[in-house]
């Protein structure tokens, strides 16, 4: 074994000093008051070196958070922890809470998904950062701490840091809070920053900014970073190494390039295959990873992935594979086993699978493990303009009065949630509606679905104006338009058996009990669930299955248009693909039209025919998907597309990014001229004459070779790219 180890490090980079963080056989178990305990983390080992960026990826419940909370000593006291964690000469698991809190915030700092819960609401942001500084450095004066806090806020890109330092956390937007958290986490020059899903709650444009700031913080402090995420795209561009977790175990650990290009473990292969990639989206079908992770309370013996693994063999169901190196080393000799023990894992490519050696050597080709994706009909049918659109929205407006919440509330402004939106959907077509949160997507679809007369503008469903429809007509229209919600847990009444949930729309239209039951069975079958399950309750289903129930309910009345409000964003990546495929099939089979609201551009590219990009209550670009993605006209679309992470390290590292500055302005703000002016990357590069056009005249939506865009300077948008080329 020992000479294997020497080989192992010789094969990689030069031997290094001992790692900054060495986790060995870490296990965390939560005893339950009754029943078997939850084995949340089951013996994981990894190393992090100084200045290294490790990405830990895995589905929800795989133990990512629990394992990193264990590092910080932040697990509830009921948790039983075993194994060892060495950090910079300290044995973390042997330290008491007081010793640990000395380390926390100074040598190790943590960034959480929800920064609001980590910031104290009653102190100003500046004071909290100063506090963090003073806590670990007694020599610092209050004055110095405060000015250092302002400096840190500046480093993380908060505009007007002196003023912002005096603001309270709730006055910050989500992105700014996360910046403030990063500022606080680097305040004491930590050696290790642990970030648990720091960008999951944020929009892509803000996510790109935050990742950039994190990278900058890492460079400034030289700290190592452990980034936990479920999004492969996020780690592709930033991480040096990637560790894949599944059911409480590390199943693969290797350099980013290795894991993405030559994964050794079927789960990683399937995961990579199931993610829609913005580059290839729309050209081939996604390959779903069927099934769901095993219960952590009653794990079957053998490999935890066996039930979902297409190449499982008998031994997989009996013996759990260990994390080991299966690569080819010196002189092409295949080294099958080098189980992680005391040695350094840094340069190795490790995986936990009985058949990794076959995969690594190429005897088992990756493409054959999962079924090959079938190519999609790339040619999106041309818009058949002659037919009546299923939905036509013309100049729709929805303004909310903003009052000061006093006794005699006075109107102090207007929120222009939707401010003149027009689009139409042809039968059998899918319109993708994209934009940052708060841009008015949800208000737009609610206006359509409420079916009351809009404040301004017109909504036609199948040519019928809903403002003028009679009660009976409206009920008939409701049959034609159905919705699938984002959160499958919230969209289904937990108290009704799913058969009744799915049949509910039919009760409205007077369908009898027996017919309803038959239809429910048919629908369950249609969405890929067992018709026998009609009597079960929602909590017995997984997220992906519940979303299928939601889809079945939407289809019950044979609608013509289904509004999909972020239908997969609450689902794990491995499950998303299955739901997307189902939606594509249903559209084909039933001739449905979709209004697909999403913030994930790759998914929109995959499923939509036409895309409308919304910004501050307006549509700024509107046209065929392929054309918009290939040649975005509007600077905002350019920025959105370039902010979306691509799960491919090569592309991700080589492409240039159009980063947007700042957050979405508040919709009450009165911006003269183009409302994107405050963040427009093109505006800043223009000459004053062109700028004044943006500042004074609101650009209308004008056709540019088949794509509508609302920008005065569409013809000059290449200068963004050339400007980026100069400043790498």
């Amino acid at each position: 074994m020992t000479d294997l180890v020497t080989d192992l490090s010789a094969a990689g980079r030069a031997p290094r000093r001992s790692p900054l963080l060495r986790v060995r056989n870490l296990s965390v178990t939560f005893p339950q008051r009754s029943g078997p305990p939850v084995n949340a983390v089951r013996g994981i080992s990894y190393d992090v070196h100084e200045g290294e960026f490790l990405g830990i990826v895995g589905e929800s419940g795989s133990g990512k958070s629990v394992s990193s909370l264990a590092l910080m000593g932040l697990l509830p006291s009921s948790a039983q922890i075993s194994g060892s964690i060495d950090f910079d000469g300290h044995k973390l698991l042997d330290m008491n809470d007081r010793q640990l809190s000395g380390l926390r915030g100074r040598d190790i700092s943590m960034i959480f998904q929800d920064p609001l819960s980590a910031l104290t609401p009653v102190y100003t942001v500046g004071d909290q950062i100063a506090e963090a500084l003073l806590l670990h450095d007694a020599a610092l004066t209050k004055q110095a701490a405060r000015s250092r806090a302002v400096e840190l806020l500046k480093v993380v890109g908060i505009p007007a840091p002196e003023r912002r330092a005096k603001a309270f956390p709730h006055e910050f937007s989500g992105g700014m809070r996360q910046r403030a958290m990063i500022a606080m986490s680097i305040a004491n020059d930590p050696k290790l920053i642990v970030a648990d899903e720091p960008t999951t709650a944020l929009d892509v444009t803000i996510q790109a900014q935050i990742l950039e700031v994190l990278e900058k913080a890492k460079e400034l402090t030289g700290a190592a970073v452990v980034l936990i995420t479920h999004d492969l795209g996020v780690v592709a561009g930033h991480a040096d190494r990637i560790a894949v977790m599944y059911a409480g175990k590390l199943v693969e650990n290797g350099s980013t390039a290795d894991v993405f290009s030559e994964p050794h473990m079927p789960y990683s292969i399937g995961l990579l295959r199931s993610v829609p990639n913005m580059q290839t989206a729309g050209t081939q079908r996604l390959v779903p990873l069927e099934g769901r992770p095993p219960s952590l309370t009653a794990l079957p013996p053998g490999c935890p992935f066996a039930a979902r693994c297409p190449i499982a063999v008998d031994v997989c169901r009996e013996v759990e594979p260990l994390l080991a190196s299966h690569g080819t080393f010196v002189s092409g000799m295949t080294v099958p086993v080098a189980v992680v023990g005391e040695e350094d894992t840094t340069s190795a490519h490790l995986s936990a699978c009985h058949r990794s050696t076959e995969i690594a050597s190429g005897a088992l080709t990756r493409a054959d493990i999962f079924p090959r994706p079938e190519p999609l009909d790339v040619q999106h049918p041309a818009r058949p303009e002659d037919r009546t659109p299923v939905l036509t929205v013309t100049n729709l407006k929805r303004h909310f009065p903003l009052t000061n919440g006093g006794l005699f509330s006075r109107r102090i402004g207007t929120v222009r949630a939707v401010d003149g939106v027009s689009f139409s959907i042809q039968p059998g077509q899918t319109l993708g509606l994209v934009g940052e949160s708060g841009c008015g997507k949800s208000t737009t679809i609610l206006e359509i679905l409420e079916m009351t007369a809009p404040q301004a503008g017109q909504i036609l469903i199948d040519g019928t104006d809903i403002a003028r429809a009679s009660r009976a007509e409206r009920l008939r229209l409701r049959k034609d338009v159905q919705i699938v919600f984002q959160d499958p847990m919230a969209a289904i009444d937990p108290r009704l058996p799913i058969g009744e949930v799915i049949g509910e729309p039919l009760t409205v239209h007077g369908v009898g009990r027996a017919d309803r039951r038959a239809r429910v069975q048919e629908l369950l079958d249609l969405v890929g669930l067992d018709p026998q399950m009609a009597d079960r309750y929602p909590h017995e289903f997984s997220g992906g299955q519940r979303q299928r129930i939601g889809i079945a309910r939407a289809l019950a009345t044979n609608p013509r248009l289904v509004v999909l409000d972020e239908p997969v964003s609450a689902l794990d990546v491995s499950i998303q693909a299955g739901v997307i495929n189902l939606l594509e099939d249903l559209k084909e089979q039933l001739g449905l039209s979709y209004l697909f609201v999403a913030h994930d551009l790759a998914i929109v590219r995959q499923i939509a025919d036409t895309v409308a990009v919304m910004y501050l209550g307006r549509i700024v670009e509107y046209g065929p998907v392929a054309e918009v993605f290939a040649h975005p006209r509007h600077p905002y679309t350019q920025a959105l597309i370039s902010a979306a992470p691509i799960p491919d390290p090569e592309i991700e590292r080589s492409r240039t990014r159009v980063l947007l500055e700042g957050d979405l302005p508040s919709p009450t703000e009165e911006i003269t001229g183009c409302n994107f002016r405050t963040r427009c990357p093109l505006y800043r590069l223009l000459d004053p004459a062109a700028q004044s056009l943006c500042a004074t005249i609101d650009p209308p939506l004008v056709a540019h070779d088949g794509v509508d865009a609302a920008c005065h300077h569409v013809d000059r948008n290449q200068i963004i790219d050339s400007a980026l080329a100069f400043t790498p």
Partner: protein
Amino acid sequence: MSIVEGASATLIAGPEPEPTTVVLARKPLSRGRLIWNRLAHTPRFWIGAVAMALIVIWAVFGPLLYPVDAFSRDPLNMGMGPTQLHWFGTNNIGQDIYAQTLIGLQKSLVIGLIAGPLGTLIAAVVGSVAGYVGGLVDGVLVWLINLLLVLPSFILLVILSPLFEDLSWVFLTVFLAGFSWMIMAQVVRSQTRSLRNRDFVKAARFMGVPMPTILARHIIPNVASLLIIDATLGVVAMIMAETSLSYFGFGIRAPDVSLGTLLSEGTAAAVTRPWLFVFPAGVLIATLFAVSLIGDALRDAVDPTSGVNRD
């Protein structure tokens, strides 16, 4: 025993357990069954339920098995203590206290069992309509709730009492219910306002499900546990309200009897002839105690974070 523990553990893990943590091989329990399982393993509930059942059976069948009529006078045994003939003794005009206690118990139970749930029903309807419809309707209903809350109902009843002198006890029941629903209506209203924006309610609205159906199918069942507790504890409150009103002479009046009127007649003699007071009072306390036990156990079963089940 294992069932109840399993049940509470699942609920603590969250009302909608994560599929990763709880994968049940057997058919999982619906919420109703969960609550029932937990109730069934609460001794308090059984004590209350058995006691209540016995009290009701006693009130219904007791008079049939007792030879003495409640209102006939026994001139030979006036103001007597308990004897073989008159189990609880007699009052000073020779009426049998045992028979009267049973009749009074019947009346008090009927009033409590009707007025408690009736108040809850009003609360459910008013609260859910106000919360769901919003706007002007909500404004008017909230105004009504606040008005009734500030009106001193006891004094109002005292003032009105001459008016319904000759109206029956039914009126008293309705009156009691009419003044007992406001707090619960506020609770239901605020719950409804948050439920209204939940996706499953929106989904129903977008399907075109009419408002009353949405309230009955999606809103009320989601506050049902609160309503059940309220109705049960409402029974206690209503019996107490009725007895105290009657005690002061504003509720049930002679010749009708309720536990309240019996008590008021008995108080004066509480020291000299204790049986006039002690027996009706004991029956009242036993009844209230039994219903309270049930209500208390229900509350703990529905909301495991309250009371003894707190983790």
